[in-house]
């Protein structure tokens, strides 16, 4: 037996109730002051064993786990060596536990207000659910209106109901709900603090229109002489005036001036909109405003955008007007779109007779041009587009080139088969190698892998099912929130299966495509899940804090600021104070740790040159004891 060990027991399922009882009984019978469990990763069952120890009257922080599964048996093939390593890991844990000190968790407050970043369907649904539970919630949306991508869609699969018809009631509800504050045309600039008590600084960009005065009548838009701004809502397929309301159902229904396009703001001359505005809402002198607010929880709902299709120039997207992306087609098909919902090709406004769809444009591509993942929604929206076109214009031939058709989801495969079987959409298994223009005719060269032949088709329009990627703001926001992101800029979950709507950073939650590609039904369910997690947090009056935090020994601290610089949570600050060093009094600059902010990462203890910084529960002494146990 190791020095200090008075009782050892082997049991197959220590995490079971019977196993926990063995620990509890041993603590009581032998008067144990520390417990080491040699088992799976502490990420699995540390909480289980600590709880069991606490029930037996032992301080839960007197329990140590030696991870002999993930760190040992699962990764070593040689059984004897593995067993030897397991023994070493056990010795290290025993050496550590003898130096453990009882720790007590502290408490911190919970600000009962939530922040939702992003006002698409994900953000709206999350906010509505939080608001319904009675908590105030702010939606910060970078665009002039909420609604996001869903507002741009014409119809939704698999039911084919009109996207705005089902979205706008939710937008209206978000505006009407007294627990929800909409902060549109705004971006979060700074976030500090921690779970339960975040502080955010929000920049409300100047609209040059008084939001509470504008009636949304639209006269300014019709009179504005600058009409060359690309209409973002219509994916740049047509133009809009410099002063504009993004779309008819926009919320808030308030105009905004595009300062890059406005003649008055650029040259000082014009001012026509101000003259025609009967409400007197135009204010060319408006400045950006800042809102500072405290929040208990923050939800990221930053959404997505399609990738730039010109990266795949074999499809001639940048040179041929009639090669469009699916989102552009969505606008062409929409009654409020640039063609009033009539299917007309962009180059000459003529009715197309043959349309080729190309799936997986940039998805499942590890060449670096595209994205390695499946964008998940393209198979279904392509089936939708193909079906709608065949339904409305039976004279149009529709071909779809695909690698796989992926339609997991309720009634999804049936939907796609309906396109192929009832609407006679020609699905061709194979990819397209090139799209080019020949004597004014678009030509598509692809392959049919079933009949094993190259296919050359004349097309009047080509539609690219472009991959989707996280909105570029996601990275910035994630950095601000210290939420981790993966190599594709999707926000990482705390656990991919068991905690899918939480970020590993406490108090940060995920909603919608910022976490990974998903369709509307999935987004709405995830939004609700994120809301329920937020509600669970805001319903608490106090949070218990992790007692394994850093602390500085004032007598040893030399005031060098190394720890302050490396701390990723801004938990360390410096204070000049009178230090009594064994009777010698002097005024020195010393490090102070804010225990509420400290996450116990230990970076400060590593950089501290004087050894003043130490981590409770993982003290330098304990770590060295573990190293000694392993090496000596």
């Amino acid at each position, binding site marked *: 037996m190791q020095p200090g060990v008075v009782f050892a027991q082997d049991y197959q399922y220590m995490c079971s109730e019977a196993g926990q009882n063995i620990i509890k009984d041993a603590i009581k019978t032998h008067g144990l002051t520390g417990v080491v469990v040699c088992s799976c990763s502490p990420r699995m069952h540390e909480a289980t064993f600590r709880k069991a120890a606490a029930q037996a009257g032992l301080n839960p922080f007197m329990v140590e786990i030696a991870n002999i599964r993930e760190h040992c048996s699962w990764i070593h093939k040689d059984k004897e060596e593995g067993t030897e390593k397991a023994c070493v890991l056990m010795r290290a844990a025993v050496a550590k536990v003898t130096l453990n000190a009882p720790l007590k968790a502290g408490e911190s407050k919970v600000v009962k207000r939530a922040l939702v970043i992003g006002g698409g369907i994900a953000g709206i649904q999350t906010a509505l659910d939080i608001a319904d539970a009675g908590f105030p919630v702010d939606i910060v949306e970078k665009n002039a209106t909420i609604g996001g991508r869903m507002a741009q869609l014409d119809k939704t699969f698999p039911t084919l109901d009109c996207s705005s018809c089902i979205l706008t009631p939710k937008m209206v509800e978000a505006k009407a709900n007294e627990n929800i504050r909409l902060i549109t045309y705004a971006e979060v600039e700074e976030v500090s603090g921690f779970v339960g008590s975040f502080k955010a600084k929000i920049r409300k960009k100047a609209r040059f229109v008084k939001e509470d005065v504008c009636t949304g009548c639209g006269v300014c838009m019709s009179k504005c002489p600058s009409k060359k701004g690309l209409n973002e809502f219509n994916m740049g397929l047509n133009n809009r005036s410099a002063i504009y309301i993004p779309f008819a159902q926009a919320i808030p229904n308030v105009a905004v001036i595009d300062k890059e396009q406005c003649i008055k703001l650029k040259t000082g001359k014009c001012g026509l909109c101000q003259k025609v505005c009967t409400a007197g809402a135009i204010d060319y002198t408006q400045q950006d405003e800042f809102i500072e607010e405290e929040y208990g929880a923050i939800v990221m709902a930053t959404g997505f955008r399609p990738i730039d299709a010109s990266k795949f120039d074999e499809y001639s997207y940048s040179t041929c007007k009639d090669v469009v992306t699916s989102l552009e087609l969505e606008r062409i098909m929409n009654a409020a779109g640039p063609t009033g919902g009539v299917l007309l090709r962009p180059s000459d406004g003529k009715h197309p007779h043959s349309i080729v769809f190309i799936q997986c444009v940039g998805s499942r591509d590890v060449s670096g041009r595209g994205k390695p993942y499946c964008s998940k929604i393209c198979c279904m929206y392509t089936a939708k587009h193909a079906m709608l076109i065949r339904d409305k214009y039976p004279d149009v031939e529709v071909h779809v080139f695909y690698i796989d*058709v992926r339609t997991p989801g309720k009634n999804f495969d049936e939907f796609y*088969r309906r396109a*192929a*079987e009832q609407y*006679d959409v*020609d*699905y061709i*298994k194979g990819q397209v190698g090139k799209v080019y223009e020949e004597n004014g005719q678009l030509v598509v060269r692809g392959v*049919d892998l*079933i*009949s*094993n032949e190259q296919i050359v088709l004349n097309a009047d329009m080509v539609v690219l099912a472009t991959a989707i990627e996280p909105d570029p703001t996601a990275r910035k926001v994630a950095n601000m929130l210290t939420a981790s992101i993966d190599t594709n800029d999707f926000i990482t979950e705390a656990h991919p299966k068991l905690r899918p709507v939480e970020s590993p950073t406490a108090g940060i939650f995920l909603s919608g495509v910022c976490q990974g590609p998903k369709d509307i039904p999935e987004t709405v369910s995830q939004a609700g899940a994120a809301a329920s997690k937020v509600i669970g947090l805001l319903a608490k009056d106090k949070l218990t804090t992790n007692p394994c935090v850093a602390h500085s020994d004032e007598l040893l601290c030399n005031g060098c600021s190394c720890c302050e610089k490396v701390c990723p949570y801004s938990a360390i600050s410096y204070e000049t104070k009178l230090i009594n060093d064994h009777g010698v009094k002097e005024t020195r600059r010393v490090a102070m740790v804010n225990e509420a902010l400290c996450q116990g990462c230990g970076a400060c203890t590593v950089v501290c040159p004087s050894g003043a910084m130490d981590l409770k529960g993982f003290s330098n002494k304990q770590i060295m004891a573990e190293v000694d146990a392993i090496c000596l």
Partner: protein
Amino acid sequence: MQMSEKDVAALVKEISGSDVKKCMKCGKCSATCPAYGEMRFHPHQFVAMVARGRVEELLKDPTVTRCLSCFACVERCPRGVEPANVVAAIRVLAEREQEGNNFSPADVPKLLSQDPEIPQQALVSAFRKYRK
């Protein structure tokens, strides 16, 4: 009047009674076909080519008679496409072209002398269609 390839394909669909659009290109028919190695085109290719209106090559292919008409592909197709019926229809049209649709039991000995290995099932299914 000469029929276009598309029209012939439409005729194949009509004769076979098979809805080739139902095919989801899983390959179960070819995976299950006992005559796979003997046929230049395989059941899934018959379905795909007929769907695309490409029947000329199928009509010219002598190995189309190698289909045993065992109907394993019909039994196992998850979408109810009935590939064997498509093969049979192609075979029928090929025979019609060659023999001017005058196939009768009396012709069997001649057929056998042309190709002694012609499967029994091919003859039986031919009788079924052309005993008038």
